């Protein structure tokens, strides 16, 4: 797949080859094979909803490779309710930059923007829908440890119903037909249509409602936060959240080679005592956001191929 000039909106548009290309390019970027390949290019970060980590990651990625950054971040822009106004914003900004990175609380906004903009748009999160570069960096991090993604046994833990990150990563891994485990309380199970789709793509799927009931060996545990707001009953929340908290003890139970991943930011779903263990991958994940985003920027801007 030729990425030059293309927008990156959804993981659903990716096939295995496109994912492979992003992983390989990220790997070369991380190894320092390219220098200053974004010189003379301007990135506009349009954050209609703040997300400091994601925005800084893109801006840092751009600057390290010699590119410039403009943009805004703030809630005052979320008052843009009419499609018309958003269209004007995108059309105008299109003329000020070579690529747009955009986050918006309303689902589908990035897709709409990509249909208006005359430059590529990279979706950095549209509501609960998609955040494809997060999935790329998750896959890239996995690929650094596992030569063959088809064999990696990945368990997803926590809120699998609403978690955008787990939906996208599980979908991406299903393109590799990796065996997957969904570990969630009944209330927060993976949506049925998605499980179905993942199975149709060829992944074996195992669903359990408790980590202790996990009988088979897994290589990776991808942890997400269970949010209070999903529960009416606070006692019920405390009880369930407690069962899905990852501590040293849980890591021991899962075996010495288990890798713990998390999209960050975390609250208390992974105990701090886990951070110092070799098993913790989440900071490496976050740091990989830089080479992966550099690779994506380089590809869509036609500077890498």
């Amino acid at each position, binding site marked *: 797949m030729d990425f030059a000039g293309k927008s990156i909106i959804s993981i659903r548009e990716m096939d295995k080859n496109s994912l492979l290309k992003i992983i390989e390019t990220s790997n070369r970027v991380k190894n320092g094979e390219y220098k200053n390949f974004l010189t003379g290019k301007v990135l506009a970060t349009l954050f209609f909803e703040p997300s400091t980590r994601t925005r800084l990651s893109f801006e840092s990625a751009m600057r390290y490779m010699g590119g410039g950054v403009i943009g805004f971040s703030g809630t005052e822009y979320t008052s843009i*309710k009419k499609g018309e106004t958003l269209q004007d914003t995108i059309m105008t900004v299109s003329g000020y930059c070579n690529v747009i990175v955009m986050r918006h609380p309303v689902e589908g906004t990035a897709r709409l923007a990509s249909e208006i903009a005359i430059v590529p748009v990279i979706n950095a999160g549209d509501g609960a829908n998609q955040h494809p570069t997060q999935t790329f960096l998750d896959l890239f991090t996995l690929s650094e440890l596992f030569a063959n993604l088809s064999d990696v046994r990945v368990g997803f833990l926590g809120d699998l119903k609403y978690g955008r990150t787990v939906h996208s990563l599980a979908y991406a891994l299903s393109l590799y037909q990796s065996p997957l485990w969904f570990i969630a309380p009944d209330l927060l199970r993976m949506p049925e249509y998605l499980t179905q789709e993942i199975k149709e793509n060829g992944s074996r799927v195992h669903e359990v409602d408790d980590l202790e009931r996990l009988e088979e060996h897994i290589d990776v545990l991808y942890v997400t936060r269970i949010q209070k707001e999903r529960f009416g009953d606070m006692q019920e929340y405390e009880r369930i959240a407690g069962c899905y908290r990852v501590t040293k003890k849980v890591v021991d139970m899962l075996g010495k080679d288990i890798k713990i991943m998390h999209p960050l930011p975390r609250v208390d779903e992974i105990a701090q005592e886990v951070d110092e263990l070799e098993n913790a991958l989440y900071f490496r994940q976050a740091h990989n956001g830089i080479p992966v985003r550099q690779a994506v920027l380089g590809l869509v801007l036609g500077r890498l191929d």
Partner: protein
Amino acid sequence: MKAYKVYAIKDGTVIDHIPSTKALKVIDILGLENEGILTIGVGFSSEKMGKKDIIKIENKYLKKEETDKISLIAPNATINIIKDGRLKEKRKIEQPKEYFNIVRCLNPNCITSIGDIDTKFYTVSISPLILRCHYCERIVESGEIEIL
């Protein structure tokens, strides 16, 4: 051809077997309001359907990709193309691959629910019918599909 209580047309398209009272909705979806002479029959008795509606559109031959747009409200409609007083073509409705501005997105946080944006859906599966919103990527399933 059967004799209807609506006069026969010499050239044009007859849409038969529309569920009763849906004729105006069909005209709306096909954008036929200003397309010359239309004859609308509502509540004819039908062996197959009990009651049915019929629309005759004079001097206009609707293409398959046009008539497939009514698949959600008149899946069993038959399309008759009449040329020079004779039946030239008779066809059924098929589910299209895409629906433009026909189905409502049920996600209140979708850009099509919030802004003034035309909806667009892709067919994920035909039986049961499952559609996916082009924008927010949510699924709507047969029982919950709402027509705009």
